[in-house]
């Protein structure tokens, strides 16, 4: 007898959901990738070298500073006892609440001739931009290093010291290599963010790959060339991505976690200053100064604040972020739980490709969706999809799903990975079906990571700019789009109240998340 269950098994369901989600992107790339046209030839002859060099240079600078701002404080916070440690630990995460474009606009204003210091030198340089981007991106490195360092903590250091290594050498020779996979995954996010960055690089006059995509799409009116450039970028990213996976898989160290919570050592009085400096400088530059600057602007322009509009935009931002982040949470759990239930390689590949979604520039995702929906519209004449508020709202959320599913997946994935296989086996022996297995075992064990995923995605969508800018429905502004509009209109002081609300909401959520995870000992110390 024909067996429906056989066809509609879990495997095909997962692949179907994946294809539906990512079809617009696949459609876009496949439709144009093999057309080598004149514009692309032109770009290759004249511009590609410049774009590549600039992109590479910016990526290197931002990565370097993100590593410095991230790793050093993470090390001290994880292993030493000093006054204000808990508060500093919390504050080190907070720059994550400031979008890169707000950071860049804020600093360009502070460092300009009309800023508070009347600086005469030209500080709109690629190196300065790299550092400014690192201000908002280093928390990606900090968070992964912090988890990694506190997992094996002082035990390895003690052994190394007993073997005669100095403190620095022990850190450099033992701890860093052991943490390499974790740090790499944080660094990967930083690099993706730099590749996606548009507003700040344009303002600083740095011609990166993304600028090239927009230039061929907008100025030269060549959508195909833009898509081809994005495809090339995508392939480079894929290459990096699989190298990283390969590298980590072959170098995965198996270290035993600390059986006891790592004991914090006291710092010698000689190094106290250094410890405080290395922890407080990132907080000061990446959080306190931008927040104070925004506050100053708000008080200076208090009579120009439109409270009603502010509330309205806050409502829009929160609604759209909330709906999308819940959907992403459900999808992420769906994909990862399916992978966990079966050993089939298909799930593995599907999940790898989902992670790549984060590397597609937001503008390309938006473009792909418009082209895709339009082709549905044209092929079915009775359907009139484009042109209504709800449809655009739906497309907007669809685009967020493509881009941010990877963000929601990563904390859940690492939590699932830590869960011993024996739990699943015992549950199955006891006769639990998959739903019960999820409800009784997975949900209670991994609820922290679900909460973390929800909040991280929410924050990312609150800050998101290019997709929202291109796909939002009529009269639908968000805090991010309003901030950007005032900023490009060269009215940064007026934009401050909107950026401040973004920063406040995201900071509060980060604080809640951090406290929640601390209380439940997810960070161990």
């Amino acid at each position, binding site marked *: 007898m024909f067996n429906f269950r056989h066809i509609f098994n879990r495997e095909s369901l997962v692949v179907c959901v994946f294809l539906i989600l990512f079809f617009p992107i696949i459609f876009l790339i496949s439709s144009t990738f093999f057309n080598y046209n004149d514009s692309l030839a032109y770009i290759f002859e004249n511009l590609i070298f410049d774009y590549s060099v600039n992109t590479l240079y910016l990526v290197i600078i931002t990565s370097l500073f993100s590593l410095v701002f991230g790793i050093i404080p993470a090390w001290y916070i994880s292993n030493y006892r000093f006054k204000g440690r808990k508060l500093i630990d919390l504050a080190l995460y907070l720059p994550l609440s400031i979008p890169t474009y707000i950071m860049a606009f804020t600093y360009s204003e502070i460092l300009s001739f009309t800023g508070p210091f009347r600086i005469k030198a030209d500080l709109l340089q690629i190196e300065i931009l790299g550092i400014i981007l690192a201000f908002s991106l280093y928390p990606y490195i900090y968070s992964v290093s912090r988890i990694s360092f506190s997992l094996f903590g002082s035990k390895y250091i003690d052994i190394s010291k007993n073997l005669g290594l100095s403190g620095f050498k022990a850190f450099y020779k033992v701890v860093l290599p052991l943490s390499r996979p974790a740090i790499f995954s944080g660094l990967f996010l930083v690099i993706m963010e730099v590749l996606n960055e548009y507003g700040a690089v*344009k303002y600083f006059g740095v011609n990166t790959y993304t600028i090239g995509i927009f230039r061929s799409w*907008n100025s030269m009116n060549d959508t195909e060339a833009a898509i081809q450039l994005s495809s090339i970028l995508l392939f480079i990213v894929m290459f990096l991505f699989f190298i990283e996976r390969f590298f980590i898989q072959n170098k995965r160290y198996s270290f035993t976690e600390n059986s006891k919570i790592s004991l914090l050592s006291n710092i010698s009085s000689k190094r106290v200053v250094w410890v405080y400096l290395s922890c407080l400088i990132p907080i000061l530059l990446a959080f306190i100064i931008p927040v104070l600057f925004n506050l100053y602007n708000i008080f200076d322009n208090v009579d120009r604040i439109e409270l009603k509009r502010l509330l309205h935009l806050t409502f829009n931002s929160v609604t759209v972020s909330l709906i999308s982040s819940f959907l992403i949470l459900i999808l992420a759990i769906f994909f990862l739980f399916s992978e966990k239930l079966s050993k089939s390689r298909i799930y593995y590949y599907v999940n790898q490709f989902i992670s790549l979604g984060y590397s597609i520039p937001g503008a390309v995702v938006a473009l792909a969706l*418009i082209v895709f929906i339009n082709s549905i*519209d044209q092929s079915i004449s009775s359907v*009139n999809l*484009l*042109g209504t508020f709800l449809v655009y709202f739906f497309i907007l959320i669809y685009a967020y799903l493509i881009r941010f599913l990877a963000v929601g997946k990563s904390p859940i994935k690492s939590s699932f990975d830590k869960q011993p296989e024996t739990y699943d086996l015992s549950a199955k022996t006891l006769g639990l079906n998959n739903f019960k297995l999820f409800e009784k075992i997975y949900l209670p064990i991994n609820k922290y990571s679900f909460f973390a995923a929800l909040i991280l995605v929410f924050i990312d969508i609150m800050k998101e700019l290019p997709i929202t800018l*291109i796909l939002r429905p009529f009269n639908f502004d968000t805090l991010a789009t309003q901030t950007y509009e005032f900023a490009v209109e060269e009215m940064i002081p007026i934009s401050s109240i909107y950026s401040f609300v973004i920063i406040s909401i995201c900071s509060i959520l980060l604080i809640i998340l951090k406290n929640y995870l601390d209380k439940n000992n997810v960070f161990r110390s």
Partner: protein
Amino acid sequence: MKNYLISILSVLCIVYSCDTNESNEINIYSQRHYEVDKKQYENFEQKTGIKVNVIKANADELLERLKNEGANSPADLFVTVDAGKLQKGAEMGLFQKINSDEINNNVSKELIDKNGYWIPITYRARILVYSNDRVMASELSTYEDLADEKWKGRILVRSSSNAYNQALMSSLYANLGQETVEKWSSGIVNNFARDPKGNDRDQVKAIAAGQGDIAIVNSYYIGLLLSSEKQQEVDAGNSVSVFFPNQGENERGSHINISGFAMTKNAPNKQNSIKLLEYLTSVEAQETYVNNSYEYPANPLVMPSEIVQSWGEFKIDELDLNKLGTYRNEAIKVFDKTGWK
């Protein structure tokens, strides 16, 4: 009760069948992100009861969106700050001609689109500003002269990704031809005080900070700086003077560009849209424009704002503004070839 409901329903049916499928609103795709626009639409809404909805984004993105939405687009009007983009949209077949005697009477003849696809509402000149301390007005003459070696290390301008620069280059291309314009571009790149970056106001600030002596900027930015509430910005504005290039007897005049509206091919609210354009070109609305955005009015009955008047009158380059779109790609290639970042 039942009768009551039926009568309500029938009244509703009559009301809806009388509706000519035109709702009481207008949908605009806008590149203009000036605060004054919001004020204008609110005034219009108060006068007519017609609600104005706006989506703001980059002109090219909006055109792409219009193209993809095709006949289903909710948009009635498209407004941008560059005639080149309006020409591009017209060439893509996205617009319909606008026929209104009132609008045609409201705006200056020399600004009107020869093909009838778009309506200018304001215009701006891309001018030179120079340091009061380090440059004499008598040293300046034309855009072409900026390639001269005497300006080495002294010229400030933003990146070639910017539409204002692309329009300027297109106008030079149309007027001078490829060979001359490439030489000019190489010359000016040699004279740059620094790599192109920032926006127009940043170029003026850079003069104030002493990083360069001459900047190419849009006229209204100087008005905005001088009227700023921030003393540092007013100081920066006061450190420079305005110069209109190419004003000599046999010269063609300064390059200008317009802010203009086009009506989409399938505009669902055509009559309302024409009403809005009639209002925006009227004396009342034009005065609101000049006093808030420091642009020049499209309506010749209205005078520019006082600050702008103080710079004096100038001769405008009468090049067909549609050419700014026609030569766009060539202009970009000149930028790329000559290393104007």
